[in-house]
């Protein structure tokens, strides 16, 4: 009896296809040729880059809110994106008088945020900037996390907040507090209720897979751009398959 079902074979095929596409897209273009892949403008991310520059100029702080665990595991894919974002923000703002601060709602995530800050400063030869107190666990339940994070927005000279990760509807309170402090807030969550409320409450919100594009837009490296291209190709392939499946279902042809 085969242990691989059709569903797992499709899943495995998708993983392998994504890996191959990412590898191919990450290869440098041939000599004399330029890559014709351009990132489409996303208003929220353009404003984030501007806010980063302003924060460095003004000597104000950036706050990266990494969210909490998504219930599946201690660290979700959205949390990994949040950590990549934190790494880039720490590197970009390493010349600032006030280094960024990261808050999280999960023990593992807070340790990883400290490690990410340490690695980011080491990469730009500024290890002396590292302070473990800048990667904080602020609360372990959704509301205690928000309650513990609000004082950071209020008391630590924060001019820009990046709320990226697994954030539920309670994150609207963070976005609202940022507005009261006249600070910029960009929000991106992998939770559907979180996205809905943050669209209304945050100054700028990213919807759906835009969350996974943040590191690429902060120039985290060619592989992040390659990931975006692979996502685009796979998305269109899936759209095609869904439409083909719908047409076949209408015609009464059953495949799966």
């Amino acid at each position: 009896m085969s242990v691989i079902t059709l569903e797992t074979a499709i899943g495995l095929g998708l993983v392998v296809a994504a890996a191959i596409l990412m590898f191919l897209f990450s290869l440098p273009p041939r000599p004399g040729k330029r890559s014709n892949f351009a990132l489409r403008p996303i208003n929220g991310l353009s404003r984030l880059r501007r806010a980063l520059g302003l924060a460095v100029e003004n000597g104000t702080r950036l706050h990266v809110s990494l969210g909490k665990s998504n219930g599946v595991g201690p660290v979700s894919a959205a949390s990994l994106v949040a950590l990549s974002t934190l790494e880039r923000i720490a590197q970009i703002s390493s010349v600032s008088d006030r280094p960024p601060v990261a808050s999280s709602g999960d023990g593992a995530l807070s340790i990883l945020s400290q490690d990410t800050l340490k690695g980011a400063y080491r990469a730009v030869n500024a290890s002396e900037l590292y302070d473990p107190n800048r990667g904080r666990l602020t609360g372990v339940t959704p509301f205690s996390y928000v309650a513990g994070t609000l004082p950071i927005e209020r008391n630590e000279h924060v001019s820009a907040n990046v709320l990226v990760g697994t954030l539920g509807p309670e994150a609207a309170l963070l976005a609202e507090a940022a507005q009261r402090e006249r600070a910029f807030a960009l929000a991106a969550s992998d939770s559907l209720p979180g996205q809905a409320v943050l669209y209304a409450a945050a100054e700028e919100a990213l919807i759906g897979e835009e969350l996974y594009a943040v590191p690429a837009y902060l120039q985290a490296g060619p592989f992040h751009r390659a990931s975006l291209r692979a996502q685009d190709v796979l998305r269109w392939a899936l759209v095609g398959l869904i439409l083909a499946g719908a047409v076949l279902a209408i015609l009464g042809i059953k495949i799966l």
Partner: protein
Amino acid sequence: MRAPVATAVAIVVGLIILLGYFVPVGIVLVLRDVLLGWAIVLAGMAALVGIINLVKVHWRKSTVRGERDPYSPVLLIVFLATVGAGFALGGPSNPTFQQVVNAVQIPVETTLTAVLAIALAYAAMRLLGRRMGLMAIVFVTSTVLYLLLNSGILAVDSGAPALKSALGVLQRLPVAGARGILLGIALGSLTTGLRVLMGVDRPFSG
């Protein structure tokens, strides 16, 4: 290369877990279960380390001049009282301990939920003024429409099949939209996971 040993461990463990999901047989399955068991223990330890960090940060905020926050001493006192009560009463499963914690936590969280409801209503009202555009109009219109639909006001049994079909389509639309967004999230999660497996993303400094 940054943290070669940690990167190698992350890649090998990630591949075993992935393989265990797709090919759940023999040794792979055993290894996957053992590794996931270790991950649970590590996550528990990480929570403890995180709480120590929380106490350290608030101790600093209570004692260092220029960083003082009046709420930090309150947090430390309540934290110590909770830990002390937990040990004295025999752990978090003790009914008296649970009753005391719930008596504090539930009213506080309910209050925050109420604040959230008001903040959201206010944010929705301001949305069109702040971010006027097609998406904002669609967002507000659909919010109002689905509030009405789910309130039951439009659930009249008129017997008109066209009206029933139209309401049925409207009820299904959010599901279709949510599936579209989830598809994007799933693809994003896939490529993010693959970046860790390929050693490109390394959320550990080693």
